[in-house]
């Protein structure tokens, strides 16, 4: 037994073993991390922690850490990982010289793409200041469908922007979720919900994790949820189980749509003759058909009650239908029987689910004695709600029909009357926001000018075709082609196409690609084998097609080996971070919240926080935001920047919302406070602004809340945010494609695509890849799950976590396996149109027979992460990404394997077949990659680990 040294110390900070951002207490003994537990005073995790969070020590002391800036050795191949250490000064001068030149000549030749980071506020600012349009974070390859599908419908979304109110819910339906970002809070909530007798249904092809404890598992074929959801809507409407009062007041369901096909305004809402106000909100100038007076009136006319169904004719003869009528017509053919054939779920089950949802919503109404006033000045004595809640994530999002599935879900939730109400879906600040939110990118190439910041946001929310970021021919301005006619609502960018596009020089060649915290040579890339070749590919002149590659990472990921310059980042325990309101804060249902990280241990070796790198570069390049009017460096370092930066001089809006004002007396808005960090440090590293109860619900139409939010500059307008059952925004794109209206038109070859997929009402279609697949040859859907004890690719370096998942297998339903002559634990080939992998199969009764699945990103390239080349990850583990293509062949050339509306990467659309490997084949996974050796400065990996804090892992 070892005696414990008394030198114990506890420091608070925020976890970053995943993106959930729990509050942690780091216990140090003689300066070494002894124990990390959850902070009970933290609003996110309330004291609990997860498997990853508890293994932070093994990340901190991992031999995979990079400790020195590295330059690829002269003559060494990219990917071989042959580096020489250099000083930071050399690294900075190299970057400064190169970037200064690009900025002065053609700023778009610099591209900055970041992965699972939590500092898009800073990285986005840097890109904008630099003047390049080529910036995005992981959202596009992650779940942009979720964000866009819901934000374009209800002004808020799941993911980090809102969630189910399980505290008051009675029926919880979880669709396509395995672990999610809000993982600890969701676990806390699901458990409480179950214990209080709530009913939990999981709709998922696979039953793992949370789904395991569901009262009912509804297995579904991947990519078919829109069929299910539309059938549920069908049944809810057919049985009259929708919340009429809610829809009438709070959605556009009663608003009249012009149904005169000959008219240029076909499909648009009919408007009162009041001229439309100018601004980024949805003006209240539409019409209802009033039941009492049987004529068209302006919406929300206090005496009126609109028809939701029917067909009407305006005085001028224009035929009109309420949006809800159009929805009803749309779902007419989507019967449960129809959906059953597509989804594999019995029609009776679909009907029963609809009835459970509808009846619970209708008959178990919640009423809270909270008075509030709506946007039209009507005072309500109580807040009511219907206790049916949903949660969905990438099972819906990561398909090329995900946008419309998610719209269908948002509409179903709205029909049940569950938007920002107790027991249903609840927003988190800064949501709800206008549909769509106000940020816009530049609208054309002129927004990109040498030596100048970008004239617009790097990422935005197009509201109409004129908002697209395209050139005169309608071609893309961005390297990833986001916001072009190919993917008009690619609001998070399309990181998964960057490397391929840059390699091909389509739409143009770039010079420097800076990748931060993304493993783009491995798990966040599709078509991995080819992409790795592209990274290393040279043109006719022997020059790299992507001339300069910079990778900022904390660990020896697969990506780092391809870098020309590696910038070693700190770990989350070594740096300042801000989970900012300008990015994705940690807000709760009851009000905005943001949080910080404060270093608890010094940086290892020469590691430097990437934030400091950006501040340094911004200062050296004299980007306006980082430079004083006198032309000198404005910020000492990142903590200084966080305290003093304001979005505009004097705006009072900065990275952190808490303790603003000179003495920390203000919140959300206020002058910089020199002691802001100390105040965060004293308060568990989190600022949580609890709203008055009357501002906590119905926020889309809550006058008090909206005005509060406007006063605090969370939103620009205080106009109500009506639910878009019918999306006029989408209709505008369709109209343009149909040659109507005065806006920009898509290039001819894309007109049909835009007209098809920009349907103002959700519809079901086979995911694009399935449309392009011979389903007899490739009958099975292949998907992945997040393991709870592993974060993407970055935890295999973790000595404790990798004991839990050290290789992965393909889980197959025994019926499917036996049909293919495959025994449990057999080595098999999994083959898609695009590639094949050899791996091991495992029987599972918890997977729908048409689906095979594996844990995500367990397989590793030999030698990466400073694992032995003999490690199970490299020999037995495999990556499903080898089977997924980043592009699909089309009549008009290749097109990204993405949702045609949002550019969401379609991870879960791939179709495969499986067959037994030959008996004489080696029992290792295929493909294999050349072993990468450890980089200079990496700690040696120990052969035996006997970690005991303050004994240096003796």
């Amino acid at each position, binding site marked *: *037994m070892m005696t414990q040294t008394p030198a114990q110390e506890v420091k608070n900070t925020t976890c970053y073993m995943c993106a959930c951002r729990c509050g942690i207490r780091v216990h140090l003994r003689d300066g070494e991390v002894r*124990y990390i*537990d*959850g902070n009970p005073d933290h609003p996110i*995790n309330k004291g*609990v*922690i*997860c*498997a*990853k969070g*508890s*293994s932070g020590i093994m990340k901190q002391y991992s031999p995979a850490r990079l400790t020195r800036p590295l330059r690829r050795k002269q003559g060494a191949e990219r990917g071989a990982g042959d580096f020489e250490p250099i000083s930071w000064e050399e690294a900075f001068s190299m970057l400064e010289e190169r970037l200064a030149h690009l900025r002065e000549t053609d700023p778009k030749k610099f591209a900055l793409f970041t992965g699972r980071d939590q500092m898009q506020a800073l990285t986005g600012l840097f890109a904008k200041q630099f003047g390049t349009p080529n910036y995005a974070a992981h959202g596009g390859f992650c779940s942009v469908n979720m964000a866009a599908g819901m934000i374009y419908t209800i002004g808020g979304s799941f993911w980090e922007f809102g969630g189910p109110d399980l505290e008051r819910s009675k*029926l919880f339906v979880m669709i396509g979720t395995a672990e999610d970002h809000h993982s600890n809070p969701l676990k*806390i909530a699901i*458990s409480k919900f*179950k214990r209080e*007798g709530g*009913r*939990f249904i999981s709709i998922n092809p696979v*039953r*793992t*994790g949370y*789904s*395991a*404890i569901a*009262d*009912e*598992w509804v297995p579904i074929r991947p990519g078919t949820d829109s069929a299910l959801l539309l059938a549920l809507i069908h049944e809810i409407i057919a049985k*009259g189980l929708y919340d*009429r009062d809610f829809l009438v007041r709070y959605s556009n369901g009663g608003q009249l749509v012009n149904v005169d096909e000959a008219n240029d305004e076909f499909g648009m809402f009919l408007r009162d003759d009041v001229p439309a106000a100018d601004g980024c909100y949805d003006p209240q100038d539409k019409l209802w058909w009033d*039941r009492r007076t049987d004529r068209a009136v302006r919406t929300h006319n206090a005496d009126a009650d609109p028809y*939701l*169904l*029917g067909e009407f004719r305006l005085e001028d003869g224009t035929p009109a239908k309420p949006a809800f009528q159009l929805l009803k017509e749309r779902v007419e053919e989507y019967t449960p029987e129809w959906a059953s054939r597509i989804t594999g779920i019995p029609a009776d089950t679909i009907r029963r689910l609809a009835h459970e949802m509808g009846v*619970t919503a*209708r*008959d178990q109404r919640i009423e809270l004695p909270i008075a509030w006033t709506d946007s039209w000045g009507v005072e309500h004595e109580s807040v009511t709600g219907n206790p049916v809640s949903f949660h969905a994530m990438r099972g819906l999002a990561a398909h090329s029909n995900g946008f419309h599935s998610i719209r269908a879900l948002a509409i179903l939730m709205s029909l049940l009357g569950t938007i920002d109400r107790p027991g249903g879906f609840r927003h988190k600040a800064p949501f709800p926001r206008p549909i769509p939110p106000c940020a816009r990118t530049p609208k054309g190439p002129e927004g990109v000018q040498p030596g100048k910041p970008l004239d617009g946001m790097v990422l935005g929310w197009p509201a109409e075709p004129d908002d697209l970021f395209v050139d005169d021919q309608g071609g893309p301005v961005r390297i990833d082609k986001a916001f072009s006619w190919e993917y008009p609502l690619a609001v998070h960018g399309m990181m998964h196409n960057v490397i391929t596009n840059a390699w091909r020089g389509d739409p143009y060649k770039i010079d420097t690609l800076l990748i931060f915290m993304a493993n783009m040579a491995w798990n966040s890339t599709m078509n991995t084998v080819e992409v790795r070749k592209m990274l290393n590919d040279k043109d006719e002149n022997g020059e790299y097609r992507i001339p300069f590659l910079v990778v900022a990472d904390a660990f020896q990921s697969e990506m780092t080996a391809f870098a020309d310059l590696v910038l070693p980042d700190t770990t989350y325990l070594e740096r300042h971070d801000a989970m900012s309101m300008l990015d994705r804060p940690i807000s709760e249902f009851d009000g905005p919240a943001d949080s910080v990280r404060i270093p608890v241990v010094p940086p290892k070796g020469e590691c430097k926080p990437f934030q400091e790198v950006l501040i340094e570069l911004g200062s050296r390049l004299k980007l306006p935001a980082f430079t004083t009017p006198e032309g000198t460096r404005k910020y000492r370092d990142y903590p200084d920047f966080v305290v003093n930066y304001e979005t505009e001089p004097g705006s009072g809006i900065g990275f952190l919302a808490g303790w603003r004002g000179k003495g920390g007396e203000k919140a959300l808005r206020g002058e910089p406070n020199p002691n802001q960090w100390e105040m965060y440090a004293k308060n568990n590293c989190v600022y949580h602004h609890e709203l008055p109860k009357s501002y906590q619900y119905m926020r889309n139409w809550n006058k008090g809340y909206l005005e509060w939010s406007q006063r605090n500059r969370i939103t620009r307008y205080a106009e109500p945010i009506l639910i878009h059952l019918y999306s006029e925004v989408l209709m505008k794109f369709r109209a343009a494609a149909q040659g109507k209206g005065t806006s920009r038109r898509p290039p001819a070859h894309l007109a049909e695509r835009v007209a098809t997929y920009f349907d103002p009402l959700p519809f079901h279609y086979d995911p694009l890849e399935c449309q392009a697949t011979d389903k007899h040859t490739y009958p099975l859907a292949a998907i992945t799950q997040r393991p*709870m*004890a592993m974060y993407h690719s970055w935890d295999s*370096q973790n*000595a*404790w*976590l*990798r*004991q839990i998942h050290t290789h992965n297998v393909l889980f197959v*339903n*025994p019926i499917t396996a036996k049909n293919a002559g495959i025994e449990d634990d057999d080595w098999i080939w999994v083959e898609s149109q695009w590639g094949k992998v050899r791996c091991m199969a495992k029987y*599972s*009764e918890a997977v729908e*027979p048409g689906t095979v699945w594996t844990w995500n990103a367990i397989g590793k390239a030999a030698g990466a992460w400073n*694992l032995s080349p*003999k*490690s*199970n990850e490299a020999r037995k583990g495999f990556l499903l990404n080898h089977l997924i293509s980043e592009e699909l062949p089309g009549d008009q050339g290749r097109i990204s394997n993405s949702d045609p509306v949002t550019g969401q990467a379609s991870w879960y659309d791939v179709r495969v077949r499986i067959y037994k490997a030959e008996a004489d084949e080696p029992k290792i996974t295929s493909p294999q990659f050349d072993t990468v050796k450890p980089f200079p400065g990496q700690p040696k990996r120990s*052969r*035996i*680990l*006997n*970690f*005991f804090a303050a004994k240096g892992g003796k």
Partner: protein
Amino acid sequence: MTQLALVIDLNVCVGCHACVTSCKEWNTSGEAGPLVDLRPYDADPTGTFFNRVQTFEVGEYPNTETVHFPKSCLHCEEPPCVPVCPTGASYKREEDGIVLVDYDKCIGCKYCSWACPYGVREVDAKRKVMTKCTLCVDRIYDDELPEWDRKPACVRACPTNARLFGDVHDPDSEVSTAIRENGGYQLMPEWGTKPANHYLPRHKTRITVREDELERSDNPLRIDSKLPKPDRDEPSLDDVTSW
């Protein structure tokens, strides 16, 4: 007499492994540590852990249940592992029923592990002594910790609160109540080891919707379905009948 124990609620355990690594983390630098890891970055990494979470599939598709099943020493009331120990290193504490190993006495003969039907003892491959769950004795009585923190590391960690900790002999404790009210059970009762740790089973919530509840008189369709009105000048019986 006190018998401290864990009660594990399979009804809410999602199999997250938080209890596994938080246990490892606490104990490796604690009184039970260090807990070795062999080949930590090589093939077949293996190490000493006191708690493991396993997964079972029950039933056949589509009626499959996935059961996550955490297991550590059950602190049996009749611990077969104790009397067999030739050195007295394995013992059960009178005062609180915790079964412990005295690492200074243990000779690493492994006999106690043979005598445990549950597979929860592990010889630490470096220290060559028997180790197992200590119920975090070095936390639960530590006066330096605030009251709320005097709980096993795994209990503090568990995000679903599936791990309850307390005295199963005190009928009013949270754990006893949970066992009583939720059908708590012991593992392998056939051996008479009387594990102090208990498990709470899955239970299901159902909603029954009866036909007559489905459509109500205030069904909004009645309001919204404006029946189509024929034009006034469309033909009608009125035009042709005369009686």
